[in-house]
């Protein structure tokens, strides 16, 4: 193997000779320069491969004597791993800086080389004074390189950096010399083995000084203002180096010192790491400058990494180099390293200071890169951050360190908040000017992104026992993305074919309740997707995310382990979020949606982690074996699913998400995605049954939440002016019924829930599709702007009519079955008051349903819609498929009730008898078929009477109304639609004052003002920053309790 010393040799040799070579011309110099970097990278690559094949750790001695008498280096698996990325990053960084390097003096090349050498040295050396030397080489090269951009800002930032770095190295030097004085040598390994010597008071102080110096280099909160300034002001190529390469070196040095640290220090240091993670992210919330924002994120990630480095020491897992990334810290490191460097590079390409000035949605390459980096940072699958977070939280739970999960969750959410907000805003902003992309500048982020994606197989250890099909959503999305050249409708057909094939593939795997869900997702997905074929306009990213969403939905019920479940869950979250973001005004609702969804996901993750901690396995079945953690797991899962179901209190994401998503997607959200929370509850109750917390039976509590959701959802729907908002709240209300009935934990209850969810899919699909069709024709979603469309869109009217009769539960259509089952089940269980309230909610549903159909189809047609045509067939056909389905199950409820009851019977004993078409429970009976027949009969009699006399009927036009002996002026003033239920608002509108929205808004506001408060510590004054460092040292010292 090549002696790693040659890394130094190559770097130094070319650095020393470059000024001379430069006489031959800059091209030659650059050639040598890139050659050297490539050679260095090649050396590390060789080593990495060797370790992959099982090589042993190698110590490299210098000066012909053995340590501790001479300096030695070490090349081990971890070193090789880190250096691989460092040198890869260095190469990319150098490529990125090509332009700058070309135009600046040769010094820049030399400095770059020494910087790389310094970092490599930091990683390899085992001599503590040598660490100091390499640190200084790194720092000084960096100080000089920051000056590549010569303006007052970057110089000021650089100077602050030097002050901070100088202080850190001063303390480091003091510490090192005292460590030497006490242990008598400078070799790290020897010092570690003679650790007890350092446990004296003086020794601990010396150690403290060393550690604190590296902490400061890691930019801990709040002593990190100088670093932020550098990130903000320096040339982005350099910032990328600071955030990735240099940080990697520092982290690794810190890692080297960990064995020296007394155990009593760990907790406090982890705390400080976590504080950095949380507070940097918090402060980032308010940040408007793109690079400074990245700076906050970098610092936060470093804090997390530091905490994790200390935490993972308790996990005692052996690291396998073949799967280097199976180490949490390594995965976090790689994730951060590539993503952050990539983002900094991107920021250099876009070259806009303010994050809100970024806009490049017409340049797919940039969008894609941005997405990959942001998603990786947020920790979405399949990027390393996802696996790292998953493992970290499960391990923390397993090793009984649950408390640490809290800051991780809070910090992650805060980080997601500003990153995803940024992402959403950037993607949505209309691009006005072309971003010029020099080829050499786009290459590095491109490579980084590719690596982020293709290191995916390295996570194989996480995926043991996981079915391949859980990656099908990604695969399908990728396939559709590659088919981008095809005509849009063709792509849609392919997507539907994929769904059908997928349905065929999973059909044998599903039975019972799962089969019902699969039926809803696949069949419903196919039918609803038909509507999206209506336009041949290219829709970037539409089919991809749609297929991903539907497939991940279908996969969730098939999940056998919590890993599978969570992965599919995250795929679902991401794809649905992106679909919302595609909507015209989707930016804000998408953010709210993703924040709540991520919050829910993290709750679920924590629950799974706790379950893993207790049972030691990931199988979902094991939820039923839980004992110690049963209650917390139960509550966490329930909370997570409640958020997804948009239950009362956490519903505020729903209206925006549903209504701002594209019209063709909303039926999928409302009809299918919302049901996934129902599946969650079925899972939860199915495995864990009833649990009692204090005097509360948790399902009873959930039932109350459900019924209040139903009630308030309905009430809020009544007061909406926007049709999609109305339907969204209506969905929320319906979900409330389902939560209520599934919480009953009885045969009838579950039957109700499943029956409702299937019928809800049908009628919500119809309603949203009808609305989509209408909106596609008239271009507004405000109901009071519509009116009288029945004559223009009779087919849509019929479908909406059938749907609202079904939703309201009026016999003879299928909705009544749901209501009947619900009340029967509730009364059977003894939940009387719930039954009363849900009856009230059901009555309120009439209000919004009538308003819906009236203000759209009835009343006065507006002049500008006089030429409107019926919605396109692409909308009508799926609606009538659903109409057919509803009519069928209304006529023959057995079609659906019998399979559902049979499926539920595996869980609960059935008390239901059948007599022909009559369902007989202990309480009552219902014959859907007979009701249908009788209704049709009694309907025919008066109809015939009217038809007999139809001749005398004169058909009139819309203004032929009695209008107090006047003629109507305009349709707008004659159509009663706005504030339709004004008196209702007057009577009980106070119940739906926006208190919950206000609550969440104030939570957000509170975080933002907290952020604003905290960031004021960064005064911009270099001296103050120095003082921060001193304060940090003193405070940490006193908290560590060095004695």
């Amino acid at each position, binding site marked *: 193997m090549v002696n790693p010393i040659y890394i130094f040799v190559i770097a130094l040799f070319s650095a020393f000779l470059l000024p001379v070579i430069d006489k031959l011309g800059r091209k030659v110099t650059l050639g040598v320069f890139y050659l050297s970097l490539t050679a260095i990278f090649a050396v590390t690559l060789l080593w990495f491969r060797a370790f992959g094949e099982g090589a042993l750790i190698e110590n490299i001695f210098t000066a012909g004597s053995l340590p501790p008498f001479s300096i030695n280096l070490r090349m081990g698996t971890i070193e090789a791993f880190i250096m691989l990325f460092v040198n890869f990053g260095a190469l990319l960084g150098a490529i990125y800086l090509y332009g700058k390097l070309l135009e600046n003096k040769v010094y820049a090349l030399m400095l770059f080389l020494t910087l790389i050498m310094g970092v490599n040295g930091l990683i390899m050396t085992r001599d503590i004074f040598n660490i100091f030397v390499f640190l200084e080489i790194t720092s000084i090269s960096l100080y000089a390189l920051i000056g590549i951009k010569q303006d007052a800002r970057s110089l000021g930032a650089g100077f602050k950096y030097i002050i901070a770095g100088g202080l850190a190295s001063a303390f480091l030097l003091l510490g090192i010399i005292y460590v030497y004085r006490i242990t008598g040598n400078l070799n790290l390994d020897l010092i570690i083995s003679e650790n007890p010597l350092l446990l004296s008071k003086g020794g601990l102080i010396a150690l403290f000084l060393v550690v604190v110096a590296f902490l400061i280099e890691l930019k801990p909160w709040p002593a990190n203002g100088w670093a932020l300034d550098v990130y903000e002001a320096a040339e982005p190529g350099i910032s990328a180096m600071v955030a990735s390469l240099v940080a990697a070196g520092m982290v690794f040095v810190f890692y080297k010192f960990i064995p020296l640290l007394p155990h009593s220090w760990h907790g406090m240091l982890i705390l400080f790491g976590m504080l950095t993670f949380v507070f940097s992210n918090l402060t980032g919330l308010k940040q408007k400058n793109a690079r400074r924002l990245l700076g906050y994120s970098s610092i936060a990630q470093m804090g997390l990494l530091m905490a994790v480095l200390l935490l993972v020491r308790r996990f005692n897992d052996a690291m396998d180099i073949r799967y280097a990334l199976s180490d949490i810290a390594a995965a976090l490191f790689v994730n951060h390293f590539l993503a952050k460097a990539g983002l900094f590079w991107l920021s250099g390409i876009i070259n806009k200071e303010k994050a809100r000035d970024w806009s490049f949605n017409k340049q797919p390459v940039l969008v894609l890169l941005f997405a990959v980096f942001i998603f990786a940072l947020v920790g979405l699958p399949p990027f390393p951050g996802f696996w790292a977070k998953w493992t970290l939280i499960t391990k923390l739970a397993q090793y009984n360190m649950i408390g640490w999960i809290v800051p991780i969750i809070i910090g992650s959410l805060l980080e997601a908040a500003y990153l995803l907000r940024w992402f959403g805003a950037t993607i949505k902003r209309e691009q006005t000017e072309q971003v010029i992309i020099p080829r050499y500048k786009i290459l590095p982020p491109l490579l980084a992104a590719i690596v982020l994606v293709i290191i995916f197989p390295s996570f194989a250890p996480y995926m043991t026992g996981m079915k391949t099909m859980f990656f099908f959503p990604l695969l399908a999305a990728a396939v559709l993305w590659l088919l981008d050249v095809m005509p849009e409708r063709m792509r849609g057909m392919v997507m539907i074919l994929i769904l059908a094939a997928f349905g065929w593939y999973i059909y044998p795997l599903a039975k019972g309740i799962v089969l019902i869900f699969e039926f809803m997702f696949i069949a419903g997905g196919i039918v609803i997707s038909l509507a999206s074929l209506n336009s041949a306009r290219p829709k970037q990213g539409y089919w991809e995310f749609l297929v991903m969403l539907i497939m991940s939905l279908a996969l969730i019920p098939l999940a056998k382990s919590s890993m599978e479940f969570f992965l599919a869950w995250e795929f679902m979250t991401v794809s649905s979020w992106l679909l919302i973001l595609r909507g015209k005004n989707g930016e804000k609702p998408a953010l709210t949606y993703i924040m709540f969804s991520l919050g829910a996901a993290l709750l679920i993750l924590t629950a799974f982690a706790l379950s893993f901690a207790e049972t030691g396995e990931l199988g979902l079945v094991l939820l039923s074996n839980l004992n110690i953690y049963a209650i917390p797991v139960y509550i966490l899962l329930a909370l997570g699913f409640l958020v997804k179901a948009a239950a009362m209190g956490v519903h505020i994401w729903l209206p925006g998400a549903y209504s701002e998503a594209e019209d063709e997607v909303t039926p999928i959200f409302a009809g299918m995605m919302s049901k996934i929370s129902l599946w969650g509850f079925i899972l939860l109750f199915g495995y864990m049954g009833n649990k009692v917390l204090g005097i509360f039976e948790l399902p009873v509590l959930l039932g109350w939440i459900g019924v209040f959701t139903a009630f308030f959802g309905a009430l809020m729907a009544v007061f909406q002016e926007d049709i999609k908002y109305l339907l969204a709240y209506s969905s929320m209300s319906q979900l409330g019924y389902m939560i209520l009935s599934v919480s009953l934990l009885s045969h009838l209850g579950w039957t109700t829930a499943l029956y409702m969810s299937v019928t809800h899919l049908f009628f919500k699909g119809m309603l949203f599709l009808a609305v989509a069709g209408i909106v596609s024709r008239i271009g507004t979603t405000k109901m009071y702007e519509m009116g009288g469309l029945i004559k223009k869109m009779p087919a849509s009217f019929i479908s909406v009519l059938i749907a609202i009769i079904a939703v309201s539960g009026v*016999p003879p259509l299928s909705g009544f079955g749901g209501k*009947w089952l619900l009340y029967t089940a509730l*009364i059977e269980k003894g939940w009387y008051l719930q039954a009363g309230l849900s009856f009230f909610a059901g009555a309120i549903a009439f209000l919004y349903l009538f308003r819906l159909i009236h203000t759209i189809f009835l009343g006065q047609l507006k002049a500008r819609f006089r030429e409107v045509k019926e919605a396109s067939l692409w909308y009508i056909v799926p609606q009538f498929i659903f109409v057919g389905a509803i009519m069928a199950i209304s006529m023959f409820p057995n079609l659906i009730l019998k399979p559902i009851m049979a499926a539920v019977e595996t869980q609960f004993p059935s008390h239901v008898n059948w007599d022909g078409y009559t369902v007989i429970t202990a309480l009552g009976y219902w014959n859907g078929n007979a009701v249908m027949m009788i209704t049709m009969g009694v309907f025919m009699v008066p109809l015939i009477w009217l038809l007999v006399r139809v001749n005398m009927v004169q058909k*009139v036009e819309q203004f032929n109304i009695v209008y107090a002996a006047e003629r109507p002026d305009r349709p707008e003033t004659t159509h009663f639609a706005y504030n339709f239920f004004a008196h209702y608002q007057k009577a009980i509108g106070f119940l739906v004052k926006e208190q919950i929205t206000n609550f969440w808004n104030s939570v957000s506001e509170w975080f933002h003002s907290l952020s604003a408060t905290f960031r004021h510590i960064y005064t911009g004054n270099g001296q103050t920053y120095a003082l921060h460092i001193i304060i940090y040292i003193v405070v940490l010292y006193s908290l560590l309790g060095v004695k």
Partner: protein
Amino acid sequence: MEHGLLISIIYAFISLSVATIWGLLLGGIMMKVVARAHGRFGPPFWQPIIDIIKNNARRTSISHGIMYFLGPVFRIAGGMGTFLFIPFIYGSMVFGNFSFAGDLFLVMYFIFFGQLGMALGAGESGHPYSAIGVARGLSQMTAFELPFALSIISIVIQYGTLNITSIVAAQQGGILHWTLFTNPLATIAALIALQGMNMHNPFSIVIAPQEIPIGPPTEYHSNFLGLLQTNRGLFNIAKLALFMNLYFGGATNLFSMLIKTFGIYMITVIVGASFPRFRTEQSIRFFLGVPTVIGILAVLVTGYF
């Protein structure tokens, strides 16, 4: 059902006819009663029937569209259906109706069928007063349904069944077995709700004749109006029959049915003659206040004590 389809249709027809005629006459009688109370003669008690004939005898009519045309059909189909799902006279083959098809909840929800259809028809007329009237009617409906539903739940708890026939059966054997006496709270709540359902004063804002010329049916006339008026009689009887069955021991023969429905309707008339009109939000608040509390008490008393 032991008899054939044709027989049951004939029975249903008889039952419907009796109910409709009785319902219309009941309306006429009440008009007479009120007139006597005013010191007038009042119209003849068969006046409603003349009105219906007159309306059907109209030579012209206009239609605003299909839904407008079908609205009254929905309305009367709702009335007929509701009635047919209620066993009219306990133990009677002819007046047993189609109660085999569903139970109490079916009846409660079928009530909405007609209202919904009517609302849609009225909506298509394009007249703003119709829409305003419907908005008021629906709002008020949600409010009085709550005490009514609570009362029903209380009854279901009390008798352990949703089957109306069984509920009537349980009340047989003396006046003290009536729900009126065994569960007075539920009865009171339901009777207050009934006032709302009947849309007499003080809950008549929906059809405020001068403000929004009789509200939803403001555009209906001729034979459409004829159907609506027929339904008014029939539907009235359906409601009264339901209340009779649930709270007043049902009826074992035609005569007791006449007496009981008359009595129950009398309550509405007395209340209507004694009170002025509530505004919509006042009536909503009213129903969500005392009657709901009574209903909750009824549920609590029967369900949990």
